[in-house]
């Protein structure tokens, strides 16, 4: 396979509502950021683009991607839109990878956005719920938080996961975001505050859930030849994987666990998979990406993870899917502190277990604290991973609190509605 690199990236600050800018201008700002960050990069060097946004409903505009393309002055170059629910940004990044890896483009722009403030929050939830089966699921209440709540309730039943463990994910991610000026809702929280926040769908409180946002992000990918010609500090994309599952939770199989290289089928005797407790598509995506990147033990081989924490519960479930810990251990994993940044004080006591190597999860603050402008989110993760691997976080964030010392390899993970589509991408310092 032809090697592919990320060579630049840009994001806007994610905010609750940005009425002064339409989606075209928001992408323009992220794009200008990326161009400014790599002086050799000009619009002429870009061969084409892939555009990512979730829904025609939020944009009130079909083919919004064509309008971004013309606003950036990229006509008559190739462009297309990709969509995969909440995983749209991850799909976009991987499509741009394919465009370069296939030899079609030397330099490809991945660009994404969402403007979710153009309707009220509950209408926005309705739009999102239209991405569940409109005959059999949506009419029951039309509410994704409810679906995730049922999933984690079963996770609690199978594995003993607690709401306090979930709350710690919120404490961690909002705490990390205190040092990320692009984040929408940085905060120093306590487990009590998370649990005493308004209940949305038992057991998930409003602080267990990410918020809707306006925002944009871009990532620029290039072939090895183009990357060396354009200079800067490229980061190599060494693994991509993607997986899917039935649209409806109710239809998913209760079968055998897909095994990662460092696991044994005996670890999971009696466990029915994925049921409604786990994300089979996430496991599948991880397995493919690890194979391509040559990762045999993710807990050892990865230095950080930016994963799709639309809910605190999904971070716990996803750490298991990715093999950072075994299925059923996600609660103890967060208790151990292994996924926290070692240099920050979260006001929490960790269990002291040293079963797992420390691998910071969502050092950026994740979706919980950065916000979740759907089409931009997966690309925002790519930009943070890129800066993290470049060692350039201090330059972009104005502080180095989230910068890991010498990170070698990171993982980004993008996820759609209850796991219907999930992408995993591995990025490595060159």
């Amino acid at each position, binding site marked *: 396979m032809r090697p592919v690199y990320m060579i630049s990236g840009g994001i806007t600050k994610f905010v609750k509502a940005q009425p002064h800018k339409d989606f075209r201008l928001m992408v323009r700002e992220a794009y200008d950021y990326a161009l400014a960050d790599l002086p050799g990069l000009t619009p002429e060097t870009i061969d084409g683009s892939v555009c990512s946004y979730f829904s025609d409903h939020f944009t009130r505009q079909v083919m919004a991607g064509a309008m971004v393309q013309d606003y950036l002055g990229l006509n008559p170059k190739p462009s297309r839109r990709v969509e995969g629910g909440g995983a749209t940004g991850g799909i976009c990044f991987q499509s741009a990878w394919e465009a370069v890896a296939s030899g079609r483009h030397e330099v490809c722009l991945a660009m994404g956005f969402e403007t979710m403030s153009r309707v009220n929050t509950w209408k926005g939830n309705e739009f999102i719920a239209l991405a569940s089966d409109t005959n059999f699921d949506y009419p*029951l209440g039309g509410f994704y938080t409810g679906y995730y*709540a049922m*999933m984690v309730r079963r996770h609690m039943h199978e594995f003993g996961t607690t709401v306090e463990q979930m709350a710690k994910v919120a404490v961690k991610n909002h705490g990390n975001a205190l040092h990320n000026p692009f984040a929408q809702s940085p905060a120093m929280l306590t487990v009590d505050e998370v649990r005493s926040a308004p*209940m949305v769908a038992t057991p998930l409180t409003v602080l267990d859930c990410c918020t809707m946002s306006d925002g944009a992000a871009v990532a620029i990918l290039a072939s090895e030849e183009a990357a060396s010609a354009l200079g800067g500090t490229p980061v190599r994309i060494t693994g991509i994987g993607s997986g899917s599952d039935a649209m409806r939770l109710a*239809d998913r*199989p209760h079968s055998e666990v897909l095994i990662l290289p460092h696991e044994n089928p005996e670890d999971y005797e009696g466990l029915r998979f994925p049921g409604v407790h786990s994300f089979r598509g996430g496991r599948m995506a991880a397995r493919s990406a690890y194979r391509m990147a040559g990762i045999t033990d993710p807990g050892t081989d990865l230095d950080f993870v930016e994963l799709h924490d639309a809910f605190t519960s999904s971070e716990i479930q996803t750490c298991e899917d990715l093999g950072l810990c075994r299925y059923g251990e996600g609660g103890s994993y967060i208790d151990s502190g292994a996924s926290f940044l070692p240099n920050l004080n979260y006001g929490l006591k960790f269990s002291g277990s040293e079963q797992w190597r420390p691998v910071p999860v969502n050092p950026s603050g994740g979706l919980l604290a950065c916000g979740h402008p759907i089409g931009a989110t997966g690309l925002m993760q790519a930009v943070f991973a890129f800066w993290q691997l470049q060692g350039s976080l201090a330059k972009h964030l104005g502080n180095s609190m989230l910068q890991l010392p010498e990170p070698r390899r990171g993982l980004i993970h993008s996820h759609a509605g209850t796991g219907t589509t999930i992408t995993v991408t591995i990025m490595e310092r060159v």
Partner: protein
Amino acid sequence: MDPRAKLPESEEGTVLFNTDPIVIKDHYEIDYRHSYAQDSPFFAGLARGKLMGSHCQGCGRRYATPRGHCMECGSATTWCELPHEGRVHTYTTCYYGSESFLKETPYTLILVEFTGVDTLFLSRLVGAAPEEVSIGLKVRARFLRNCKFKVTDVYFVSA
């Protein structure tokens, strides 16, 4: 040609929420003639007080929600009737929901397991306080008499 032509003025105006930037109220609506297509017998079944599932003719799997072809082996399925009694596989009580459903909050969602059926059935549980619900609870289907040809024509109560 009339160079003095004028469109009539109308007093149907536009609601503005802001002037800098200009934010307008903009309404859109759609009427679908939505077909349940191959799943129609399920909805017809609700009107007769029956829960109709699918039975794979290839591998024998039973689906609690209709599915014309088996997800596992790809064979066509036939219709089969499901039991009216099952158990709660998981649950939640929603205090919020989509705009259309806000007026119905709080409501409790359950995934129902039926003995001998390989997948679950999503429905609402009625008549139970949030703290009374638990995994394993036995539940029984009830049907609306005035059928609306929606999946909400069936709901569950504790058995």
